[in-house]
C-alpha cells in the first residue's frame, strides 16, 4: 500500500512537472528615460585689454590758428584775433615733423600709412569685432542649451532592459 502511494505521488509529480509549486512569472522591466548630460561650463577667457594708438593725420594744409577766447565769456571769439602759436604758413606736416622730432630726440622716424591702408585697417578691425561678437554668440548659444538649470538642456535616451 505504501509503495502504491509513493508511486502515485512520484507519477503525479513527474507528469505535472512540479506545477503544483506555483512560481510567479519573472517580472519584465523595460525603462526608457531621458538622461541629463552634465556638462561642466568652462572658465571664460580673460577680457581683452586694448591700448589705443595715436593716429596722426598729416597733410600740407596750413594750420588755421584757433580763435582767441573772450576772458569774460571764456568762449572763442574770432573778432578778438587768433592764437599765434605757429609761424606764418606753418602746415600740419611741419607740425607733425616737429612733434615727432621732439618725441624722438631730434630724429625723424615714424611709420606711415596711406588713407587706403587706414581704410583696410578699419575694415580688418571691424571684421575682427564681428568675428569676436559672433563667436561670443555661439558660446552663449552652447551655454544656454547645455546649462543644467532646465532638464531639457541635453537629453539622451537610454533603454534599460
Amino acid at each position: 500500500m505504501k509503495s502504491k502511494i509513493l508511486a502515485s505521488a512520484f507519477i503525479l509529480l513527474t507528469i505535472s512537472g512540479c506545477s503544483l509549486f506555483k512560481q510567479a512569472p519573472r517580472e519584465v522591466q523595460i525603462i526608457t528615460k531621458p538622461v541629463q548630460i552634465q556638462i561642466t561650463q568652462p572658465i571664460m577667457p580673460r577680457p581683452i585689454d586694448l591700448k589705443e594708438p595715436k593716429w596722426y593725420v598729416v597733410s600740407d594744409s596750413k594750420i588755421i590758428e584757433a580763435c582767441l577766447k573772450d576772458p569774460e565769456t571764456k568762449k572763442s571769439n574770432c573778432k578778438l584775433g587768433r592764437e599765434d602759436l605757429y609761424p606764418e604758413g606753418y602746415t600740419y606736416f611741419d607740425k607733425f615733423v616737429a612733434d615727432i622730432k621732439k618725441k624722438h630726440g631730434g630724429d625723424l622716424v615714424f611709420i606711415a600709412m596711406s588713407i587706403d591702408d587706414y581704410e583696410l585697417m578699419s575694415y580688418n578691425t571691424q571684421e575682427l569685432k564681428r568675428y569676436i561678437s559672433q563667436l561670443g554668440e555661439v558660446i552663449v548659444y552652447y551655454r544656454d542649451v547645455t546649462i543644467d538649470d532646465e532638464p531639457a538642456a541635453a537629453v539622451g535616451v537610454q533603454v534599460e532592459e
Partner: protein
Amino acid sequence: MAAGGYMYYQFSVVPMQRELDELKGVVMAQELRNQEQIAAIAAIQASVEKATKANAVLQQNNQQYETEMADYLDIFRRHNISKLASAKPGMIEKRVNASTEAVFNEIEDISKRIHSLND
C-alpha cells in the same frame, strides 16, 4: 473522473493561467515603457524647442553684427576720406582717434560680456 479533472486542470488550466500572468506582466511593462517614452519624447521636444529658440537669437544677433559692420564701412564709401584728410587733417585726426577708441572699447565690452557669463 476526479483524476481526469485533475489532469485537465494541470495540463490546460495551469499553463493558461501561467501564460495569463506572464502576459499581464508584459502589459504592465509595456505601459510603463509607454509612459516613460512619452516623458522622454516630451523632454526631447523641450530640448529641441530650447535649442531652436537659442539658435534664432544667435542668427538674429549675428545678422545684427553683419549690419553694424556694413554700416560702419559705409562711412568710407559715403565720404572721400583722402580729400577730407587733405583739407582738414586736424578734424579727421580727432575723429580717427575717437573712432579707434570707440571700436576698441566695444571689443573690450564684448569680451567682458563673454567673460562674465559664468558670474
